[in-house]
């Protein structure tokens, strides 16, 4: 049945994240952007929310809540509303852990998951994107070749979230005509990690670049073991998560622009009373709603275990376009003030353009 109704649990999670966003993320956002680094205590504080361990089954020391992409979407919208880069950093562990929960072998779960259930922050990181123009999810340049009981990985990866402190990487590589994911420890021979990369936005996130020069991993390092895994599912999960972050970012722009436009005057009245501005705000609202429902629909398909490729693609592409459009017009509503770093809109504009090119690679 078609239903847009949140459960009470989801509403509670939404409230909790809303207050975390307001109290922790928003106050730190600008200073982290300017300093281009995470606040000292931030990852620990975010860890206390228990987002990663919540969805890890009890038998691997987790809290055993249902793994719910829809609840994630609701949570991520709120975190994205607070600050996308800090949200991306806080969620990096989940990105790695959830892939193992969803598609790992029993042994992989036993080996890697308990580390995410302790009191101390712990992270692995997804290595999907590759440097250079025209990155194509269907034509990865990183390759995996079998050699006896090992795989040999070659290639380069970029935009690896928290690459500086991840214990393991989940490296997506092409193996013949198919794609697979490989768990690579940070100290693997032949792996060099560099960074942080400097970018237009998401400045607080330390993104690393990986160079895999004939990195050898045992066959057991392949996610899902001999059966391998469904890489598209990892991508779909990421795309939906990124979409949810973008919904939050876009909603934040509107909430900032509305009071500004009501206060700011031109030609003897509030600029919000000009149809050009009022209609821009209305269009922003229309699109945020659309973005959210597309995201929920894709999340629901994931949750129900169906192939969510189409839904995740639609949600991501639509959200990417509209989030950018909204942030760009947010600057326009503020006029000259939109261009000044005293207001957060220019930062959201940079974050929007950056997060929307990640293709499904930087979040849960």
């Amino acid at each position: 049945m078609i239903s847009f109704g949140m459960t009470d649990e989801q509403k509670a999670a939404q409230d909790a994240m809303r207050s975390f966003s307001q109290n922790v993320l928003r106050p730190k956002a600008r200073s982290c952007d300017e300093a281009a680094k995470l606040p000292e205590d931030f990852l620990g504080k975010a860890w206390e929310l228990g987002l990663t361990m919540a969805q890890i089954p009890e038998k691997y020391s987790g809290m055993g809540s249902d793994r719910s992409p829809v609840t994630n979407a609701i949570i991520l919208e709120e975190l994205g509303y607070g600050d996308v880069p800090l949200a991306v950093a806080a969620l990096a562990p989940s990105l790695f852990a959830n892939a193992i929960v969803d598609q790992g072998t029993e042994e992989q779960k036993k080996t890697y998951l308990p580390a995410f259930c302790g009191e101390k922050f712990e992270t692995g990181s997804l290595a999907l994107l590759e440097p250079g123009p025209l990155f194509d999810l269907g034509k990865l340049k990183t390759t995996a070749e079998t050699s006896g009981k090992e795989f040999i990985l070659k290639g380069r990866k970029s935009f690896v979230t928290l690459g500086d402190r991840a214990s393991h990487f989940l490296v997506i590589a092409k193996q013949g005509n198919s794609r697979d994911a490989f768990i690579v420890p940070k100290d693997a021979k032949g792996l060099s990690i560099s960074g942080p990369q400097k970018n237009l936005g998401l400045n607080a996130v330390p993104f690393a670049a990986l160079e895999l020069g004939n990195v050898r991993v045992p066959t057991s390092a392949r996610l899902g073991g001999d059966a391998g895994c469904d890489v598209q599912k990892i991508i779909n999960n990421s795309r939906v998560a990124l979409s949810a972050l973008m919904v939050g970012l876009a909603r934040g722009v509107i909430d900032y622009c509305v009071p500004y436009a009501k206060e700011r005057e031109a030609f003897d009245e509030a600029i919000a009373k000009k149809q050009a501005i009022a209609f821009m705000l209305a269009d922003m609202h229309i699109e945020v709603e659309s973005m959210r429902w597309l995201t929920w629909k894709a999340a629901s398909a994931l949750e129900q275990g169906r192939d969510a490729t189409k839904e995740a693609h639609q949600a991501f592409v639509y959200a990417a376009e509209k989030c950018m459009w909204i942030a760009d017009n947010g600057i326009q509503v503020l006029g000259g003030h939109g261009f000044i770093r005293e207001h957060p809109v220019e930062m959201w504009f940079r974050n929007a353009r950056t997060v929307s090119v990640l293709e499904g690679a930087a979040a849960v």
Partner: protein
Amino acid sequence: MPIDFTLSERDKGLLENIRASALIARKYARYYDEHEESELAPEQLPEAAGFKRPFDEKAHPYNPKTDSGMAVMGMLQTMAQMWGDYAVRLKRQKGGLGNAALQAAGTPDQQKKWGGLTLAMAITEPGCGSDPSRVQTSATLDPKTNEWILNGEKIFVTTGVRAEGVVAWATVDKAAGRAGIKSFLVLKGTPGFTVAKKEKKLGIRGDDTAAYVFDNCRIPRENLLGGKEEVEKEGSGGFKGVMKTFNMTRPGVGAIGLGVAEAALDFTREQLEEAHVDLSYGGSLASQTAIAKKFQDLETLWEASRLTVLRAAWLAEKGKPNNMEASVAKAHAGAAVRRICQGCIEILGTMGVSREHLLEKWLRDCRITDIYEGTGQIQRLIIARTLLDYTREDLK
């Protein structure tokens, strides 16, 4: 119920049933398009029997725990019908927009008395388009005969020729502005009430659009919908009640357009698949053809729009306020269907403009979506006022 976007077996059965009859309706789509003057009822068509496809309610009883709600299903059913053909569906429909108004504003007695008729809705006048508060048609009470005397002109009355009666807006007190506007039920055949014209249109040609004249048209005092004769002094409470009708018709109009746009997308997809264009999702921009990217963008736009329509309906069926969401749905769908049908034609090229196919007709039929029941501009005014917490006076 948790968040869910799937249909139950019963939901699917109902929609498939409608689609089957909609496909028959589609066979006559071109006929009605080319015979704008025709008032031939679809029931007189050769394959009319196919329109009646009873759904086995007993075998598939409604289960509120698994089946979609009434309002949501209403939207999906509208889409399914319009996916067949706009005109044939409307021609077959008992009831018009006026029936929704009767339902929303009529007394129980009035609903009982006129509910079985097909009622049009007459709001717009030659001098007022998007601004219903400028209604000039007057209703004056003649206390001697206990009759209202109506005078004025109405245009753009949907199904105005075929309707058996009309709910017309008229003012009982011009000085009172919006508060003076009331709804009156006028039956066809009432002296002084004439159908002045049947419009020739760009699209939806099978569905008639009329212009009315009321010339000292006398109707019984009890034909005032809701029965409240007094004009409220402050605010526009009564007017707002009248406007409330739109909270279901606006998403409904969106659904109409989206049903037509879905037909356009389906036709285009078939053609592209026949030409072996890869339309699969999941990959990156770098590996797509321009045609596939364009088509997927249109398909995504359609889905986004459809979800705003379902959201507005879902709120209504949960008894939650949906004034803003109804406008979001209407505004989104109005713009989306313009782009979708135009885009499908761009993709298919000359094939898209040929009258050998229905795509060009769907473009024409769709175009009304962003105009009637409040233009896209009016919807944005409503949305912006809500966002900004502005009154009608603050932003207009």
